[in-house]
């Protein structure tokens, strides 16, 4: 019947324009975030211990130039990289567990990193053997080892990546147990409490150029792997049975995704401490603007997380200069307020954000 055919062709054209519209929107969002990153990087090079001062003055003064080059630029770019890593990890976690409340710290990596740092701080200068290893490893190494070890422990406890629920449960258990051991360590060595709190709330204070390059390398690797595996996440979003029937080899690909998650989270946490909310909020913020599949979602999530963390880092350095607020507090305030506003605006429509 011609009217049905006409209706169908109209519907198909409408849905195709909708898809093209979303593609274009994704491009616009990506470009917009990149431009914003560049602008924030320039501003960030000007925010320091005296609040905002023009980076142009650095041209004439060699000491100021050294400060801008050695301290402020690596911090700003480090914030970008750490935000990108957390955004990537958040998008992967939410896709892997099909849970909108998933964040990068789901598999116990936060507690593992805190325990690593607490143990390192408590052992510094106490035992000469331990100190030798610790000096080589440094606090960043200890945090990374702790995060990765916690994820491995979770995998061991869950006996593989096959059952999502068992993996989640094991992650929660490992998080709680390692958190308790961490509390015990801080009780026995209370002088590390202030430094521990600084780590738990996050800071880009000591990020230098080597740290930036390391994070950039890890981000490239994780991004490439996640991009290649984005089809698996798309398949999983349709449900496990459907994914199986589509012929996706779920077990090894899931293991690869968990490895990407652990590597990205471990690297970000090692350099900047535990920064809450960026991994959770970035994918949601992207989804509130554009509907897209996991490949583009992961990349846009990186950019969104990077911009979020850069903004928070600049505000943290600016507001009470020369003192510094912990960056984790500001990411929670910024990201949380925006999400609250979004939810308030869209209450009534039955949609998740």
């Amino acid at each position, binding site marked *: 019947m011609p009217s049905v055919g006409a209706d169908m062709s109209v519907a198909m054209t409408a849905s195709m324009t909708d898809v093209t519209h979303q593609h274009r929107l994704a491009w616009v969002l990506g470009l917009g975030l990149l431009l914003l990153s560049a602008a924030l990087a320039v501003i960030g090079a000007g925010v*320091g*211990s*005296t609040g905002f001062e023009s980076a142009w003055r650095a041209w004439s003064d060699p000491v100021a130039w*050294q*400060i801008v080059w*050695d*301290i*402020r630029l*690596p911090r700003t770019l480090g914030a970008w990289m750490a935000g990108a890593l957390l955004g990537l990890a958040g998008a992967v976690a939410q896709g892997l567990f099909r849970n909108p409340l998933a964040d990068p710290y789901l598999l116990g990596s936060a507690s593992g990193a805190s325990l690593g740092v607490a143990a390192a*701080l408590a052992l*510094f*200068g*106490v035992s000469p053997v331990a*100190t030798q290893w*610790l*000096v080589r490893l*440094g*606090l960043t190494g200890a945090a990374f080892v702790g995060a990765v070890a916690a994820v491995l422990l979770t995998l061991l406890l869950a006996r593989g990546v096959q059952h999502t629920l068992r993996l989640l449960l094991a992650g929660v258990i490992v998080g709680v147990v390692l958190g308790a051991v961490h509390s015990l360590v801080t*009780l026995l060595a*209370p*002088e*590390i409490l*202030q*430094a521990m*709190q*600084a780590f738990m709330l996050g*800071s880009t*204070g*000591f*990020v*230098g*150029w080597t740290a930036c390059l390391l994070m950039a390398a890890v981000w490239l690797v994780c991004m490439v792997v996640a991009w290649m595996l984005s089809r698996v996440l798309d398949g999983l979003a349709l449900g496990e049975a459907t994914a199986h029937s589509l012929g996706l080899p779920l077990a090894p690909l899931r293991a690869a995704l968990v490895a990407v998650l652990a590597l990205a989270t471990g690297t970000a946490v090692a350099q900047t401490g535990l920064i809450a909310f960026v991994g959770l909020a970035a994918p949601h913020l992207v989804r509130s603007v554009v509907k897209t599949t996991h490949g583009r979602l992961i990349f846009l999530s990186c950019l969104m997380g990077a911009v979020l963390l850069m903004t928070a880092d600049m505000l943290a*350095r600016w507001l009470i*200069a*020369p*003192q*510094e607020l*912990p960056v984790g507090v500001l990411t929670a305030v910024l990201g949380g307020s925006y999400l609250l506003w979004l939810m308030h605006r869209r209450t009534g429509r039955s949609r998740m954000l």
Partner: protein
Amino acid sequence: MNKLLAVLLVLWAALPSRALQVTDDRGVAVSFAQAPQRIVTLLPSLTETVCELGQCQRLVGVDRYSNWPASVRALPQLGGGLDPNVEGIVALKPDVVLLAQSSRVIGRLEALGLKVVVVEPKTHADVQRVLAKVGQLLDVPDAQRVWRVIDAGVSAAAQSLPARVKNTRVYFEVNRAPYGAGESSFIGETLTRLGVKNIIPAALGPFPKLNPEFVVRANPDVIMVGDRNYQGMEQRPGWAGIRAVRDRRICVFKPEQSDVLVRPGPRMAEAARIMAQCLVDTAGDKAP
């Protein structure tokens, strides 16, 4: 007869009480029939205060962080200041418990019938005040003399510094966040009395959490830091250019020394001597 009894009662009530009465930091007046003989302290600086007044033998229990003098380590340890072992404290049947305001256990101990006196030294002036108060509590007559000895010790340490060391610009790092010790902190007051300059002005508060760039910009001549927090200091981005790092004028304190320096208490003369020794050692062969 009844009227006489009434008058006698009024007269007896009006007689000045022979009991000891102390007003603690909360403003609560705690009274004792006689000077307390069994004392429990839950703050290391209060343990040191009691021992400086020569009443170490009256201590029956301390917290787990009290470690000076060595004799208190043999006493029963009753948990920390913030998480004490209430049962252990009650079992020791103390006459008084000395602790800091921030402890949640105060209400619990008072409900169990123990007498609690809250004192905490946080500044130099506080040390004198706490010595006087604890001296009054323990019925020790020469608390003022003890304070004068401590004060003279600090002045002696200040005078022992050669003229070229005065006006050195010092950065004292309390821990690696980095938190620095400002002019208004206890450590800062000791540094001021020694005659050196603190790169952290009083306006930033006692223990500000600094932007590491601030230290690079301020370019201190000497850095003082505890052993625990020192690892990796020279590798911090931009810190290799600081004068103190370039000339290797960094004092790294051992844990026992850190204890003395960081705790506001009656060992402040020893703290001043440690800092003075550090300044002299790092002054090196610099021409005046």
